[in-house]
């Protein structure tokens, strides 16, 4: 389970988040929606430790992890697929995947097993395993980025706009891949601008605006597109 409690965070003296609270229950798929510059990505960065949390707590599986440096959080089971399909462009697909398992590099058998599991999940990565990641298409990079996170054996996975700048057909593939991750039992927090995709797959949504959670609903609870659009276009806060 992942719980953020009144997170205040930002860059230097600039505060981006003004008290964000949200909970992702174990095995749940929660989407955090919002427009540009509302604090979506900063929320994820604060969760993994890339941005300093000035106030509030980040709790992972019942433990407060505020003081754990970013590079140790993947070993605790917290992993993030960053925005922009970030990969190590001059390293091969396989090397990229191996880097995901860096924190448990002595576990050779486990790594070989997980590598095979990623190749079964994303068949195109197996075909292109010797190719430099910089040569991959946008969709393939996104799969590689997700595969690399899976190699860390996370319990909680954060995905930062996985559908951004991808063709609709590829977005569908990515959405299916994310549902597949939920079937694995992973706890997922998805940050998206693509409201349609988020509503299709998430079971709970939060909407962030101006660094605060402005709206929250169970998806099965009658979340209507119009109601959400009202928030994007600056309607009243709930």
């Amino acid at each position, binding site marked *: 389970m992942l719980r953020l409690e009144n997170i205040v965070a930002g860059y230097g003296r600039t505060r981006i988040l003004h008290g964000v609270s949200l909970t992702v229950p174990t095995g749940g798929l929660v989407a955090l929606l919002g427009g540009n510059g509302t604090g979506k990505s900063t929320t994820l960065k604060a969760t993994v430790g890339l941005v300093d949390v000035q106030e509030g707590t980040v709790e992972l599986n019942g433990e407060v992890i505020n003081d754990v440096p970013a*590079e140790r959080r*993947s070993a605790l089971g917290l*992993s993030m697929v960053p925005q922009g399909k*970030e990969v190590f462009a001059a*390293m091969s697909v396989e*090397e990229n995947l191996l880097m995901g398992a*860096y924190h448990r*590099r002595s576990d050779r058998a486990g790594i070989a097993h997980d590598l095979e599991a990623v190749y079964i999940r994303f068949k195109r990565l197996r075909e292109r395993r010797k190719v430099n990641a910089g040569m991959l298409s946008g969709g393939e990079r996104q799969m590689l980025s997700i595969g690399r996170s899976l190699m860390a054996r996370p319990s909680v996975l954060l995905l930062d706009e996985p559908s951004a700048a991808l063709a609709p057909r590829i977005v569908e593939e990515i959405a299916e891949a994310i549902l597949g991750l939920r079937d694995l039992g992973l706890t997922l927090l998805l940050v998206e601008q693509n409201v349609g995709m988020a509503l299709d797959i998430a079971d709970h949504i939060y909407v962030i605006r101006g660094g605060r959670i402005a709206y929250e609903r169970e998806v099965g609870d009658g979340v209507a597109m119009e109601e959400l659009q009202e928030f994007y276009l600056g309607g009243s806060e709930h």
Partner: protein
Amino acid sequence: MDLFLQYVANGVVTGSTYVLVAVGLTLIFGILGVVNFAHGEFYMIGGYVGILAITVLKLPVFAAIAVVLLAAAVIGLLAEAILHKPLKSHDATNSIISSFGLAVALQNAALVVMGPQPQRLNLDVSKIPILASIPTDFGPVFLPQQRTLIPLTMVILIGVLYVILKYTWTGRSLRAMAQHPTVARLCGVRIQSVAVVTFMVGAGLAGIAGMLMSSIFFVYPVVGNMIALKAFTVVILGGMGNVAGAAVAGLLLGITESLTSAYLANGMRDIVGFVIVILMLLFRPQGLFGKVAERS
């Protein structure tokens, strides 16, 4: 023609030194973004420690190499603690200026400890069994063993470095940090460990170069100034942060200098590299093997 080959061979010897110094410099820049003007001092310290280990401590040559590596690694550790650790979240200019300061401090420390007189390592390689078996005549080319030892050591060390970078977890973490520091952190790579390893490797390579060259050229407190400038030339020619590029460009610079000195004028020797670097920066700033920058 015979002399031409001899000049090329001489160029390969000096070029190998440039490779050893420049590869460390380009690693430190490529992985940590630190432009280290104290890199020539790693070379100088390697030269002095080699002389002390062999003439004062009377160590056999291979033990002396180990001592040089150890001393250079310690200096690398110190340099990291000064140039990178406290400055990594600041603008890069800070570490550049600090590296000038460190260079001056190390030069003056050498002046106090070793004195101003140039010194040379009197190493008769022909008395060391393994090294004595290295031939001195290669067709029309004559190279004394202590000269052949330099490209030989360079090839071995760069080969080992290549294998480490390509096939080990440490190597992968170094390359990952160079390509995408944020994602590398998310994967669990500690920037501090990478920084220490990078500085130690860079200083070790330059230190070995300094020791090997001290049996051919004099060592003095500011000997590192020119070698650092040469290494920067090589790094720019090879493409900033590009290890393979630095290896090729180092050899090319050595050969170009040797041929210039033979066929044009000895005084042109040190000028030619800088002229090439100016032309390179004007017409192909990414270097011979660099790609147009795409840094995250």
